[in-house]
């Protein structure tokens, strides 16, 4: 049984990773079709020449940076507050936001924004996308930071306060330094989920806020193209760099 299990595991890992590896490999193919005709970087050059892809990339970067900054702040505060004393309502909301189907979250945020337009003079655009990304990424931040907080002893803050520190000073100088790796990992996770989202974004984006996944999706629906392979390979490498960074902060 042992040997069969090992053979199976090899097939399993191949199934999990070969599709993306093959996809990336064919981004270097000269031919437009799935027949190898030699090495070429043409499809990468095509990315730079495509104004929609470039605009989508910049929009995605701007949105991911803004949304992950906000959700990291909100989520870290939330995890710390819940660590001091739990709240069933808040914890329940976090749970539910994680399991809410993306399409439901997308249309409900769209409904909220449309409803707010009656009073507020704004339209769908970058800001609504950022708010929507904060809506779904905050729970991820809370989970990562809360996991880190479980390794911190509450006795440390109590000791600091016995020695005359205020609540804020105890947080700032005792707990926060211990949390930094967790906060950085949470921010990187928020960055990736924000950068990757298509379903929710497509519901709340305006004409000026097409993100990279939206551009890729539109291209993919028109049919496969080696340009998508190339941009996919770049995204995978970009996410790979983020995971390496995240590993590095976790084990200093």
């Amino acid at each position, binding site marked *: *049984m*042992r040997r069969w*299990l090992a053979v199976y*595991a090899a097939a*399993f*890992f191949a*199934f*999990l*990773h070969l*599709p*993306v590896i*093959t*996809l990336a490999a*064919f981004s270097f193919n000269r031919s437009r079709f*799935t*027949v190898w005709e030699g090495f070429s970087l043409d499809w990468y050059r095509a990315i730079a020449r495509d104004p929609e892809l470039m605009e989508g990339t910049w929009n995605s970067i701007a949105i991911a940076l803004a949304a992950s900054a906000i959700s990291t702040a*909100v989520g870290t*505060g*939330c995890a*710390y*507050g*819940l660590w001091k004393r739990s*709240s069933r*309502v*808040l*914890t329940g*909301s*976090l*749970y*539910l*936001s994680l*399991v*809410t*189907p*993306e*399409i*439901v979250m997308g*249309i*409900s*945020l769209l*409904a*909220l924004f449309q409803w707010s337009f009656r009073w507020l003079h704004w339209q769908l655009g970058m800001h609504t996308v950022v708010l929507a990304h*904060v*809506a779904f990424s*905050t729970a991820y931040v*809370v989970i990562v930071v*809360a996991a880190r907080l479980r390794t911190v002893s509450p006795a440390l803050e109590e000791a600091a306060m016995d020695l005359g520190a205020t609540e804020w000073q105890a947080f700032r100088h005792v707990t926060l330094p211990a949390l930094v790796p967790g906060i950085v990992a949470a921010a990187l996770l928020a960055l990736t989920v924000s950068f*990757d989202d*298509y*379903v929710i974004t497509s519901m709340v984006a305006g004409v000026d806020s097409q993100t990279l996944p939206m551009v*890729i*999706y539109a291209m*993919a*629906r028109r*049919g496969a193209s080696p340009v*998508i392979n190339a941009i*996919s390979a770049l995204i*995978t490498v970009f*996410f790979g760099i983020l*995971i390496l960074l995240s590993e590095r902060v976790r084990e200093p």
Partner: protein
Amino acid sequence: MTLRRWFLLPAWVWAAGLFAAPLAIVLAYSLLTRGVYGGLAAPWTMENYRRLFDPLYGFILLRSLAMAAASTVLSLVLAFPAALFISRSGRRRNLYLQLVILPFWTSFLVRTYAWLFLLRDTGLVNTLLARLHLIREPLPLLYNDGAVLLGLVYGYLPFMVLPIYATLERLDPALVEAAADLGARPWATLWRVVVPLAAPGIRAGSVLVFIPCLGAYLTPDLLGGGRTVMVGNLVQNQFTTARDWPFGAAVSVVLMAIVTALVLLFLRREGDHLV
């Protein structure tokens, strides 16, 4: 105010403004009538929920439940031996775990597109089969239920492996040895000792796979090509092309109710330990 209140304030704003309020609005919309130009109109009604029993829409809901169930079972069958292998691989365990977690850090859209690339008529699979003279015409691998099922399993498989691995890792090896000492063959040990003890992980993994599959939108849209309509596509369609927001809202409420019920059922059994 104490420091804790200040720290929780933004989170409460998030919970009220970006989580509860949108869902409350959808709930309200689901009880309204569709206006002439696709807006919302006055009479409050249950009509939108009644329409879910219309065979056309009821079928989509049942079909989504069936697809999610099939994806869950298939993921379980594929994930269990892999989790077993990882839990028994000693020092290399962490490396294998990283390989399972890696897809979480790869774009979901890219991973779904990879199958579009592999399965299309001029894709790698059809090209290879044609080169080997096994087929003359390309096989219609894409835009059917099978492709969607494959995409769903591929997308959420790690969610099944990790919880099963977590229970197998805590499993006392002495129990397996005891079964062997008492004369159980490896298969009997697996079925009657290991699998029952891994049940909590199997339950957790099943919930984690079933829920996103039920509400899936991207996979059926991209790999099903509009032919495999699931409930997520129905919702999207009502809010965009069909412009029937009240009905789309009613479908969303039902979907949300199913998901919430599943999570509550699961938590009641397993106890909560998220935060």
